[in-house]
């Protein structure tokens, strides 16, 4: 794995994130806006819930027939004059990209937004070979200047404030007047537009991601608001598409269903500004467009996920709604998750791709509030999948000793219902008595980790089970 991973230190990461004042200020900007915009867009389209079912079913069908759709897709790409490079690992994918770049003697590569590129750690590989990769999505450009990875799959710089961006632009854009004003987002955008425009025109190779691949036509699709992906893929002589296996959909009709839920779930737009369907290289008579068209098709563990316990995760269309609605993401931001994919979708996908031994904390970093599943456009049962990871982690003895012995103690009682009821009755009555005066506990033995951050309300008297039995009799 070429990408630096800090997922094993999730707890430390989260602790630092919560005490990081600029990060908390930036996260404040995203805690409500995304949620309101999605809710509005969903409410405005009466067919939205039915479209979610449709989107889920299309992805399910495609995954069940993935081998055949991949073959059909590849055939159409070749017919259109393009090439598909199947790659088992990020290392194979990096090698394929490098060999295409080297064949063209490329010095500069512009890049549209791609999470697969992050999975591959492509930028470092290119730099090591003397090829300069330039991220062109505004958010990606900003984090590249900072040497960071995206903290969100559709809003990569959501963890930053404009003052930080200004400082980075002043540090890097040293050819511009030092007394220029850069306090407003619009001034920052204008500067980035001008700087990147020169890069677009100078690039030898353009690399984009893909939101979807269409088997019917051998087409790749990118969805953007800025237009950077289009300049990236239209101006250089070579267009390389980075995609993973599960991006496939059968037909243009199918992708239309998915497009109707993608932007609404992501940003609350009906459609993103630019939805671009690309099929092969420049045609006879064309006056623009790339001369070569390559698709790097990365597996990286996905072929083993199909049809399995975590196969539902491959339906994900990377809208970001799960993290936009996640109280844990809102609290710690995306970098705390420690690898490429943050939030609930990352908590399920990351253990599949880098191992539960490294990413075991992530599926535990959930309150199971269920908001992610409630908004997922393809109805991935994210909490259930996180629970499966917890079970696997436990089965593989990866959970800490204190947690395991605590669970064993609880299991001892849980398996003996009469003893359990007796013990909880005594326990609750005792706590109720002690806490009666203040109504809450500021600290409790063995529960310091919990009471350090909030008070524990004192039990009011009888247990839930006792009350349940009583009410049932009354009825």
């Amino acid at each position, binding site marked *: 794995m070429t990408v630096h991973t800090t997922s094993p230190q999730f707890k430390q990461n989260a602790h630092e994130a919560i005490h990081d004042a600029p990060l908390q200020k930036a996260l404040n*900007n995203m805690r409500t806006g995304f949620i309101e915009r999605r809710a509005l867009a969903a409410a405005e*389209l*009466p*067919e939205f819930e039915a*479209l979610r079912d449709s989107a889920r079913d299309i992805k399910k*069908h495609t995954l*069940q027939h993935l*081998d*055949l*759709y*991949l073959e*059909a897709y590849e055939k159409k790409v070749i017919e259109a004059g393009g090439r598909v490079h199947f*790659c*088992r690992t990020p290392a194979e994918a990096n090698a394929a990209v490098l060999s295409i770049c080297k064949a063209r003697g490329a010095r500069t590569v512009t890049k549209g937004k791609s999470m697969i590129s992050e999975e591959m750690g492509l930028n470092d590989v290119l730099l090591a070979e003397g090829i300069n990769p330039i991220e*062109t999505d505004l*958010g990606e450009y900003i984090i590249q200047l900072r040497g960071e990875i995206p903290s969100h799959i559709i*809003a990569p*710089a959501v963890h*930053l404030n404009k003052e930080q961006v200004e400082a980075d632009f002043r540090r890097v854009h040293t050819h511009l007047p030092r007394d220029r004003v850069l306090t407003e*987002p619009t001034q920052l*955008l*204008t500067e980035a*537009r001008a700087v990147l425009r020169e890069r*677009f025109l100078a690039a030898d190779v353009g690399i984009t991601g893909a939101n979807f691949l269409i088997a019917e*036509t051998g*087409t790749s699709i990118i969805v953007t*608001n*800025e*237009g*950077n992906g*289009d*300049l990236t893929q*239209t101006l250089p002589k070579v267009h390389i598409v980075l995609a993973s*296996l599960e991006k496939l959909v*059968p*037909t*243009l009709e*199918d992708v*239309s269903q998915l*497009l*109707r839920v993608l932007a609404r779930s992501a*940003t609350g*737009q*009906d*459609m993103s*500004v*630019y*939805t*671009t369907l*690309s099929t092969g290289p420049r045609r006879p008579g*064309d*006056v*623009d*467009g790339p001369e070569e068209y390559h698709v790097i098709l990365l*597996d990286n563990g996905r*072929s*083993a996920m*199909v*049809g399995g316990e975590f*196969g539902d995760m491959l339906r994900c269309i990377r809208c970001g709604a799960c993290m936009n609605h996640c109280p844990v993401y809102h609290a710690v931001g995306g970098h705390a998750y420690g690898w490429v994919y943050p939030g609930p979708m990352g908590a399920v996908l990351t253990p599949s791709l880098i191992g539960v031994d490294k990413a075991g904390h992530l599926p535990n970093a959930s309150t199971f509030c269920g908001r992610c599943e409630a908004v997922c456009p393809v109805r991935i049962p994210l909490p259930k999948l996180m629970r499966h990871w917890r079970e696997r982690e436990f089965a593989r003895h990866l959970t800490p000793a204190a947690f395991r012995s605590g669970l064993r103690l609880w299991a001892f009682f849980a398996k003996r219902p009469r003893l359990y009821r007796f013990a909880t009755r005594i326990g609750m009555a005792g706590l109720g008595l002690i806490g009666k005066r203040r109504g809450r506990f500021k600290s409790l033995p063995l529960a310091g980790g919990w009471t350090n951050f909030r008070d524990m309300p004192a039990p009011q008297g009888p247990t839930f089970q006792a009350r349940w039995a009583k009410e049932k009799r009354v009825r």
Partner: protein
Amino acid sequence: MTSAREDILANIRRSLGVTGSEAPRRSNVATRLQNAPAGIIPVRGQLDARGRVAMFKQQAERAQASVTEVAHPEDVPGEVARFLRDHNLPATIRIGADARLGAMPWAQTALEVSSGRSNGNDPNAVSHAFGGVAESGTLAMLSGPDNPTTLNFLPDNHIVVLSAADVVGDYETIWKRLRDDLGKGTLPRTVNLITGPSRSADIEQTLLLGAHGPRTLHIIIVGEPA
């Protein structure tokens, strides 16, 4: 050593518990690719011709495009000149080889017209759309010498001419029309679905127009809905 391609396909088949040669699976895939069944289509765009144009206009304006209607193709150059003048923009345009645009009386205006792809120095471009989608106010643009893709992205201001008769209800009708023109399973090199001018909200979630693509998108709908 097996190739990555064979390995990946074999892995998928092992995971699914299939060989890849099962007739029912193959027929499922062939049928879907052949029939391309439509899914849920929002009723929002399912209107008569006049209603579709009105819905298109409303949705495109919601996406911060500006829209005007003219009666005849020969009215287009005058409208382009007016738009540029009203926005204090240079009176120069770049156009492709589209015959519909070429037949318009540009000489009746003071506009300086050049043709071909953009190299990044054109303030304004005029393109002809293949169609418009009422549902979301989306333009469908096809690549090729008639309307080079660079004109959609490099100029600061993009003016798009759209025949009222080409305003359809949904994306599915665009695909149907493309299949009628090009045959099943074939697309132009690039189809750009464009909904409003370029924008970004990457800095503090503040929505700003004019990120990398055009800062303004002006749509001229021509003729009577049909």
